[in-house]
């Protein structure tokens, strides 16, 4: 099967839109992806025909909703090669998933002063702040990997950074600013050596490349529905079952209990233990449909398409005078997210001129201030690609950048 981008684009209603009189060129998928009609249709059908609360009712609607919700869990489990669907905890987004690990695994490990948590300078704020808060609560110390000049994790001090005091390591699988795909094998091996738990922030990798949690050999991964063709309001924590089974709950409430008395409560087994209250039901079903859509195309093919687009984009941007790229300059070991600076023009202004031409890129710190600081800028302009991105759109970006230079020349 060849990767038929035109056919794919026909599935995305929003791609028919015009922005400021120009066809929409959506280059902000790392921020949030667009959704194919198959996903919207699955949710519509659920809401119009099968809506009921889950795990609580014997009636037909409740049973249908529960079955659909659990099928979505099974689809997500298979998508990342999880051992069992019970390893999949639905959250509201990646951020909640990471906070869940910080609270529940943090409590399970009984962290205390002297213990160390290791992250990196390349992290999204959602993989920084939860650990800072955990360190505040427990007195543990936060340490981090730096970034090399070409935008890769600086592993030079690995042996010192991850040591007998390290209890938890949490790293981004693919950077949302630099596009770097981190090869984590050495870090995971070293973490295992010292007995530290490893979490991966896969918010940018699961949507774009084949991810196999058993192959990665880590303990937890987090990702988010809205970046992988799914709806907002749904995220995923995957965790090794034996570990989840030992962890205390995070949020308390309906559906996560075994039994409740006023004097005390016992908790259900995972994943229910970590899904307090009515979950995002229609959203989980939408995510299941997104997984079906991605499986249909094949994640290897999706990744290959994005590699091709990225190679094309890196060349096109290199040809625009005054453009400086942050992160790996070639497609090897990187995904379809390219951040850059335009000499003498603030990213806000770059983004504004591009928007006037229908080209939607993100500007700002991308919730990764430390990465910006590392490269000496307060903000970056970022173009990010997905399975619906075409080379024509990259050309439109390049033309737009010429216009930027005209306005601010």
């Amino acid at each position, binding site marked *: 099967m060849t990767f038929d981008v035109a056919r794919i684009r026909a599935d995305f209603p929003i791609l028919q839109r015009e922005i400021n009189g120009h066809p929409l060129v959506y280059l902000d998928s790392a921020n949030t992806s667009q959704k194919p009609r198959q996903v919207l249709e699955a949710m519509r059908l659920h809401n119009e025909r099968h809506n009921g609360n889950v795990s609580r009712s014997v009636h037909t609607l409740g049973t249908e909703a*529960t079955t659909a919700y659990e099928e979505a869990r099974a689809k997500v489990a298979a998508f990342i090669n999880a051992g069992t669907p019970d390893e999949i905890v639905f959250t509201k987004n990646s951020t909640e998933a990471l906070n869940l690990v910080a609270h529940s695994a943090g409590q399970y490990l009984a962290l205390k002063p002297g213990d160390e948590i290791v992250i990196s300078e390349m992290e999204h704020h959602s993989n920084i702040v939860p650990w800072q808060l955990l360190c505040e609560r427990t007195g543990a110390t936060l340490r981090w990997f730096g970034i090399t000049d070409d935008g890769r994790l600086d592993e030079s001090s690995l042996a010192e950074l991850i040591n007998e005091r390290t209890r938890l390591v949490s790293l981004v699988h693919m950077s949302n600013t630099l596009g770097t795909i981190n090869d984590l094998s050495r870090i995971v091996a070293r973490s295992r050596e010292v007995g530290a738990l490893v979490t991966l922030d896969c918010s940018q990798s699961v949507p774009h490349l084949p991810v196999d949690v058993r192959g990665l050999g880590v303990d937890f991964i987090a990702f988010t529905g809205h970046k992988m063709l799914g709806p907002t309001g749904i995220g995923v924590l995957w965790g090794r079952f034996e570990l989840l089974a030992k962890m205390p709950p995070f949020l308390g409430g309906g559906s996560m209990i075994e039994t409740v008395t006023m004097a005390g409560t016992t908790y259900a087994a995972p994943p229910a233990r970590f899904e307090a209250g009515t979950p995002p039901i229609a959203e989980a079903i939408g995510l299941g449909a997104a997984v079906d859509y991605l499986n249909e195309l094949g994640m290897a093919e999706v990744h290959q398409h994005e590699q091709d687009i990225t190679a094309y984009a890196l060349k096109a941007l290199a040809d625009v005078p005054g453009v400086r790229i942050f992160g790996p300059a070639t497609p090897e070991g990187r995904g379809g997210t390219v951040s850059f600076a335009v000499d003498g023009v603030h990213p806000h202004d770059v983004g504004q001129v591009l928007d006037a031409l229908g080209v939607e890129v993100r500007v700002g710190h991308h919730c990764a201030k430390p990465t910006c600081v590392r490269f000496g800028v307060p903000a970056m302009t970022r173009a990010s690609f997905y399975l619906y991105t075409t080379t024509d759109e990259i050309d439109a970006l390049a033309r737009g950048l010429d216009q930027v230079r005209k306005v601010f020349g």
Partner: protein
Amino acid sequence: MMLDALYQEIILDHYKHPHGRGLRDPYDGEAHHVNPTCGDEITVRVPSDFSDISYDGLGCSISQASASVMHELLIGKSAGEIAGIHEAFVELMQGRGQVEPDEDVLGDAIAFAGVSKFPARVKCALLPWMAFKDAAARAGVDVGASPEVKA
């Protein structure tokens, strides 16, 4: 009426006239199980030779009848026989109406075939069987690998 598939005469009989109900001594293992969604509970006791299977609990017709049928079916059997029957029952319950039950193995329990078409009730039927397995384990007898039971 589709209810007939669920509420077979045999099931209603066992519900209204349960066999072997009540907790009795002596026993070597006891287990208390709860269905967290509906609040149903059951306690099962067994001596290690399964010369008795006693139980008590609160629950719907399906879980109560299932306990009664289980009592009849497993009492006095060997661990090996029990493992086979237990496995057949779990398989039947998880078969979503696709598994043909073997009356020679399952006896009255074949009446539960219809329950497997009602995903929300499968847990009810399995509740006593899961508690039994735990009680047996605590009595030091392994009656087969624990199947996965989804909430």
